[in-house]
């Protein structure tokens, strides 16, 4: 076994994780390592040909075009989150655990069955994703005494997905031996659907999202929502693409569209009623995930392009909102609307991050979130009026929630904030940079076009 090529994407983050443990006394070096390594690997994945298959544990490691772009996106997002979390003293275990999760997720996406295997088994992907989910417990709990209910729900749902996913793979193996069995086909589709329902926090298994978002450090929530769930979405696409019996079955696509609309509806009904930013972020993210699933279920190039754009920009939107929330919680002890009163006069950049991130998550122009939503609305409005209305309603609902928060932030204050309560220069610079990117992508979404085209071309299940 030689280590090189695509194997680097698994090995290097693990080595960096080990190094960050050794360097735990030097927080700055650990943080720099955690920021630079994923960023460097993302650039390597995009720039260099890593497509030579390599053998590992009886399987092959191969980086296909779709996964190359997806992994580069996941690694870049992780790097940005590590950068944002740097100054908030996340604890020495944050970086090693985060890097180990990245390594596992890369493994889940690029370790494939050997070429002579009779069916495209995803056993290793399932196991790696399950192990990564369990590791997510540590950053999500974040060391806060007594805050365990959200993360407990999270680990229950994510762990229950493993048996379902392994059973789906086992059923798929049997289906390959007798492809004409309608019962087995139905059972396989059902098992795949159940596993991804659990993994992607689809209703009724969504309850961990608001609970975690309220309790966990905001950037850890953003990590789970974007990196972990992002990898699960890519795995779903790989399964739809690789397993023709599943991806080519109209029932699977109908299930995806139905689940997506339920989540969009959930966001539309509940987002505007929330009274704290944590839950608002959660319902906004759930509605956004619904829109992504609906777009994938359309099985068209335009739908898949919209889904991928939404996947990228949701990291920016939730990350931006989480950065603002983190500062509000640190300085004012919470993110309920009551505690946000007058925040804009005390933490102007954090307030701007919350508002812009929230409105981008809602899909409003001219922010980044609008690019994907607009593409999806254009695709949907031709044939499904109800879905279009529901998508618009979820955008309006999340926007109302954000505006209710803004109303509290704009309340006058009696005494100005002291220096300790204000943003530091580094925090303000990070927020301004993220805001600039959010606005730039919203105004010029064409910059994403080359990656999106390559990504869509890699998935042949669309338009079958």
């Amino acid at each position: 076994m030689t280590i090189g090529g695509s194997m680097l994407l698994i090995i290097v983050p693990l080595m960096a994780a080990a190094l960050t443990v050794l360097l735990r006394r030097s927080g700055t070096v650990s943080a720099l390592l955690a920021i630079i390594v994923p960023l460097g690997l993302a650039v390597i994945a995009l720039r260099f040909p890593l497509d030579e298959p390599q053998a590992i544990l009886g399987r092959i490691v191969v980086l296909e075009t779709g996964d190359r772009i997806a992994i580069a996106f996941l690694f870049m997002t992780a790097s940005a989150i590590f950068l944002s979390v740097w100054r908030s003293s996340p604890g020495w275990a944050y970086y090693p655990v985060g890097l180990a999760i990245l390594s596992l997720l890369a493994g889940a996406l690029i370790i494939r069955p050997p070429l002579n295997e009779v069916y495209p088994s995803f056993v290793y992907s399932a196991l790696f994703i399950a192990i990564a989910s369990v590791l997510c417990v540590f950053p999500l709990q974040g060391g806060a005494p007594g805050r365990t209910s959200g993360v407990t729900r999270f680990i229950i749902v994510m762990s229950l997905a493993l048996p379902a996913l392994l059973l789906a793979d086992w059923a798929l193996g049997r289906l390959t031996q007798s492809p004409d069995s309608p019962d087995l086909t139905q059972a396989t589709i059902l098992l795949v659907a159940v596993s991804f329902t659990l993994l992607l926090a689809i209703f009724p298994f969504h309850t961990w999202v608001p609970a975690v978002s309220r309790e966990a450090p905001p950037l850890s929530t953003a990590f789970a929502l974007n990196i972990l769930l992002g990898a699960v979405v890519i795995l779903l696409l790989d399964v739809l693409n690789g397993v023709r019996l599943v991806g080519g079955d109209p029932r699977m696509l109908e299930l995806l569209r139905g689940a997506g609309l339920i989540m969009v509806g959930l966001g539309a009904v509940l987002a505007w009623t929330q009274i704290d930013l944590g839950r608002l972020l959660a319902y906004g993210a759930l509605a956004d995930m619904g829109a992504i699933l609906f777009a994938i279920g359309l099985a068209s190039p335009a739908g898949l392009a919209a889904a991928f754009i939404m996947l990228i920009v949701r990291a920016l939107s939730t990350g931006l909102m989480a950065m603002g929330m983190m500062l509000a919680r640190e300085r004012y002890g919470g993110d309920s609307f009551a505690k946000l009163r007058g925040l804009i006069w005390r933490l102007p950049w954090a307030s701007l991050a919350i508002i812009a991130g929230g409105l981008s998550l809602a899909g409003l122009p001219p922010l980044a979130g609008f690019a994907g939503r607009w593409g999806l609305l254009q695709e949907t409005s031709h044939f499904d009026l109800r879905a279009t209305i529901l998508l618009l309603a979820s955008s309006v609902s999340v926007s109302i929630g954000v505006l209710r928060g803004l109303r509290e932030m704009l309340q006058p204050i009696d005494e100005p904030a002291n220096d300790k309560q204000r943003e530091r220069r580094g925090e303000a610079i990070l927020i301004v940079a993220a805001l600039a990117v959010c606005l730039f992508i919203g105004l010029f979404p064409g910059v994403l076009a080359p990656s999106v085209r390559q990504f869509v071309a890699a998935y042949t299940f669309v338009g079958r």
Partner: protein
Amino acid sequence: MTDLVSVLSGLPATTVLIALVATAGLLVIVADWRLLNLLLGVQFLLIGALLIVSQIEGFPIELAIVKALVGVMTVPVLYISSRRARWGRDPDEEDEEDLGEPRPRFVWLRAPGLALRAIVALLGMAVALSLALRSPIQFLTPPAAARDITIAAFALISQGLMNLALNENPLKVGLGLLSVTAGFEVFYTPAEPTLVVVALLGIFNLLIALAMSYLIAAWAARPRGAA
């Protein structure tokens, strides 16, 4: 090791199965954290024993031993954090104890919800047995092994789910998750007897124990009155 395996092979499978089902039920009923840790270890040993005594065709005995050992390794992880969490007792409860008389020996028998937990465990077991007898796993041979493995898998999964549904404290939730996974593995390991998959499932189990142990520590540090 060979002697142990030959002794185990002589045990009647039904006896091991009954012991396993009873242990799984007790994990739902019992509230004492010390006893729960012990029962978890016993459950994993019985799972290994069942896989050996069932004499499933084509299933290597070594995998059963590995499975039991990995399961048993989760017990110390949970035990240490349970002990640090003062066996799940509320800090306020401890203060009262310091002031008054010592706890009666069998207080856990009078713990709130005992009757409810017992009824739920029995109902769950009845549903599991009925499902297992209706649809035994067909690919395992001999048929007696298929029946035993199916009953064990359904019983462990049902009792694990009951623990997940009834509790919020991380130890019980962890036991529930480990039981569900163990129930699934009882069926899945003979179906997919690959060493790497068994090893990865073992890592998954150990990490669940580690994560739950971390959550137990955080739960125990909760502010007073938040129980």
